[in-house]
C-alpha cells in the first residue's frame, strides 16, 4: 500500500527550471540573426535540393523527367490554336514562288512552335530574285510570306554569263541570251556593277543614240566607254560623263558625226574632243589631202 505521507517534503527543492548549458547556448545561437536566417532559409533549400538531386541522379528517373517535360511541351504545342494549316505567298512571280516554296516546310499542319520564321526569312532573302521577305503566322493559322522581288535594271556581262542586276548592283538572276531582255541596258567591265546608277544616268542621257547603243563598258574601274553598233566607241570622262555625252549628241545632231566612218569619239579631255576614224577613212582622207597639197604646190 502506498504511503499516505505527502511526497512534498520541505527538503525537496521546487522544480528547477534552469536550462542546460547546451540548451542555453542553442537558444542563443538561434537568436543570432545571421544563423537564424541561415536556418530558416538555408536548411529548407538545402533539403529540397538534396532530395531533388538524390531523385534526379537515377537514370530512369531522369529519363522519366525528361519524357514528362517533352510530353507536356508537345501536348501544349500541338494544340489546334497553334497549328499552321496552309501557306500564302504573295508578291512574287512563278519561278520565284517555286524557289520559295522549296525553302518552306512541306508538311502541313505544323505547330507554329516548330517554325523558325526568322530562319526562313533569312533563307528566302538569300535567294537572288528576292529583295526582302516577311514571314509570319497570320490569321486562321496560315503561314503568310510576303515577298518583294528584286527588279533588275541592267544586264551585266562578264566572260561567259549574262546576269540581271538591280540598282544596288546585286545580282538577281541569270539569262542565257541578250535577246531575252532587250529592254535592259547592258554593261560590262570590271567594277561595272558598283556604279549602276552612273550607268543608268548615262543611259538616260543617251536619248537619240539609244537605239544604236550596244552597251557601256567600265574602263580601268574609273570611267565608261559607250559602245555603239558598227564598233563605234564614245570614250566618256571620269566626271561629267553625261555632259560629255550631251556634247556628242549635239555634235551628232549638227553634223551627223556618228553616221560617218568614225571609230572612236574621245571625250576624255573636255577641252580637246578627239575623233579617230577607221583606217580606210583615214587613208582616204590622207589621199584627198595629198591631192590638194600637190595641187597647191603646183600652183
Amino acid at each position, binding site marked *: 500500500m502506498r504511503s499516505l505521507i505527502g511526497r512534498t517534503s*520541505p527538503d525537496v527543492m521546487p522544480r528547477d527550471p*534552469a536550462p542546460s548549458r547546451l540548451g542555453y547556448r542553442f537558444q542563443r545561437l538561434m537568436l543570432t540573426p545571421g544563423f537564424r536566417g541561415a536556418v530558416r532559409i538555408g536548411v529548407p533549400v538545402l533539403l529540397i535540393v538534396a532530395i531533388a538531386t538524390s531523385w534526379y541522379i537515377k537514370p530512369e528517373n531522369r529519363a522519366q523527367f525528361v519524357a514528362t517535360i517533352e510530353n507536356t511541351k508537345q501536348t501544349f504545342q500541338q494544340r489546334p490554336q497553334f497549328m499552321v494549316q496552309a501557306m500564302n505567298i504573295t508578291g512574287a512571280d512563278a519561278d520565284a514562288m517555286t524557289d520559295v516554296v522549296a525553302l518552306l516546310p512541306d508538311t502541313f499542319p505544323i505547330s507554329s512552335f516548330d517554325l523558325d520564321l526568322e530562319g526562313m526569312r533569312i533563307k528566302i532573302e538569300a535567294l537572288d530574285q528576292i529583295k526582302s521577305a516577311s514571314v509570319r503566322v497570320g490569321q486562321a493559322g496560315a503561314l503568310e510570306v510576303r515577298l518583294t522581288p528584286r527588279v533588275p535594271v541592267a544586264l551585266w556581262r562578264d566572260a561567259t554569263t549574262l546576269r540581271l542586276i538591280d540598282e544596288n548592283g546585286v545580282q538577281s538572276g541569270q539569262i542565257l541570251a541578250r535577246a531575252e531582255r532587250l529592254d535592259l541596258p547592258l554593261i560590262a567591265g570590271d567594277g561595272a556593277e558598283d556604279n549602276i546608277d552612273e550607268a543608268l544616268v548615262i543611259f538616260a542621257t543617251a536619248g537619240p543614240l539609244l537605239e544604236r547603243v550596244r552597251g557601256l563598258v567600265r574602263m580601268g574601274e574609273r570611267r565608261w566607254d559607250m559602245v555603239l553598233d558598227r564598233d563605234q566607241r564614245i570614250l566618256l570622262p571620269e566626271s561629267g560623263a553625261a555632259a560629255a555625252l550631251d556634247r556628242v549628241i549635239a555634235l551628232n545632231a549638227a553634223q551627223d558625226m556618228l553616221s560617218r566612218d568614225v571609230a572612236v569619239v574621245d571625250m576624255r579631255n573636255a577641252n580637246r574632243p578627239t575623233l579617230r576614224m577607221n583606217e580606210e577613212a583615214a587613208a582616204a582622207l590622207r589621199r584627198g589631202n595629198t591631192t590638194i597639197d600637190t595641187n597647191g604646190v603646183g600652183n
Partner: protein
Amino acid sequence: MGDLYDSQRAMRQMRKAAMQRGVVAILDVGTSKIACLVLRFDGPEKFRSVDGVGSLAGQSQFRVIGAATTRSRGVRFGEIDAMQETERAIRTAVQAAQKMANVRVDHVIACLSGARPRSYGLDGSLNVAGGMVSEQDISQVMASCDVPDYGADREVLHAQPVNFALDHRSGLGDPRGQIGNTLTTDMHMLTVDATAIQNLFYCIKRCDLELAGLASSAYVSGMSSLVEDEQELGAACIDLGGGSTGISVFMKKHMIYADSVRMGGEHVTSDISMGLQIPASTAERIKTFYGGVVATGMDDREMIEIGGDTGDWERDRRTVSRAELIGIMRPRVEEILEEVRVRLDAAGFEHLPGQQIVLTGGGSQIPGLDGLASKILGQQVRLGRPLRVQGLPQAAIGPAFSSAVGLTLFAANPQDEWWDFEIPADRYPARSLKRAVKWFKDNW
C-alpha cells in the same frame, strides 16, 4: 589599483560597444530573486509618445523589451555562495528574458548587494597657480587624492568625484575653464570584497556574457527610488532585500555613503520557519500573505492555517494567530532597522540638510513598516517605488525591482567615475606613444 582601473575602463568600452549594438541586459543578482531585463537603446527621446513630463534621468532613450525573474539559488547575503547554482539561475533568467525580447544579448550590466561595501571619503588638492582649470588638472587633482589602505582583498567598485572646490568657492559641478589658485576635490570611493566580484565575473562569463558594468545595488536602487529633490537635498535609501539590506545616502545628486546590513527578508522567513516549525516555503508564503509589524486586537482572532503537511489531515492542522506571526516578525525587522540606524549614525546622516529616508526593496512591502521605521529612523520616512521606465511589465514595477530599474538608469547614463576621466600625463609611461600624441594634442 591600476588593474582594477583597467578592468573598469574595459567595462566602459564594453558598455559603449553594447550601446552601439543597441541591446544590453541588466542583471540584478539578489539573494531571493535574480532579475534580468533586456534594454533596447534607440537614441534619445525616441519613445516619447505624448507630450507631458519629459524624461527623468534620461530614461526615455531606452525601452525594456524583455524581463524575467527567477528564484535565486546559491546566493547568500547578496554574495555568490554556490557558483554552479547561481550560474544556472542566471542562465534561467537570461534565457527567459532573451526569449521575451527575441534578441540575443551579449553584454550585461550587473549589480550585487552584498560583498561588505565600505565607503571612503577622499580629498585631494592641486595648485593650478592662477591658471585655467583644464581636463588634465582635474585628472591630476583626482590622482592626488590620498587613497587609504583599503586592503589587498578588496576592489574599488565606485569612485565618484562628488564635489570640486576652487579656492573659497565650493560645490562646483564642473570646474573646467574656471580660474583659480587651488583646486580641491572630494571623492566618494566604495570598495567591496574582491572575491565576491570575481565570483560574479566568473558566473557571468560561464553564461557566455560579457560584463559591461558593475554597480552596487544600494546605489542603483537609490537612483531609481529617490526623487530628484531628495537626491539633491540629501536622503537615504534603504533597500530591504532578501539577504542583505543596502543603505545609500545621496546628496547633491551624488552618492556620498553606502553600506549594507547583512540581514534581510530571508532572515524574517527563517525566524518564522523556526518559530512555527514549518517549512521555509510555507513560512515565506504566510509572511507575504499575512505578515506585518504592527499587531492590533483584531489580529488575535485572525487564525492562519499553517498545516503540518504530514498527510494526517484529521489531527495535524495547526493554526497560529496573525498576532503571533507579527510577534515573530517584528523583532527581526526592528533589529534590521536598528542596525540601519547605527550605520546611518556612523555615517553622520543627521548632519545632512535633508533627513528623508526612503524604504524600498521587497522587504518594504511588509504592512506597517513605514510606521515602525519612522519610530526607529526618524520622522521623514516614506515607502519608495522605482521610477517608471518604458516597457517594463506590470509584474516588475514593484519596490522589489528598484535596483533592477536603477540599473537600467545606470546603464543609460552612468555617473562619471574616476576612470572616466583622462589619465594624468605623468601616469603615462615615459616613452609611451600615447604620451607623444597627448603632447601634440595639448600643444597644437
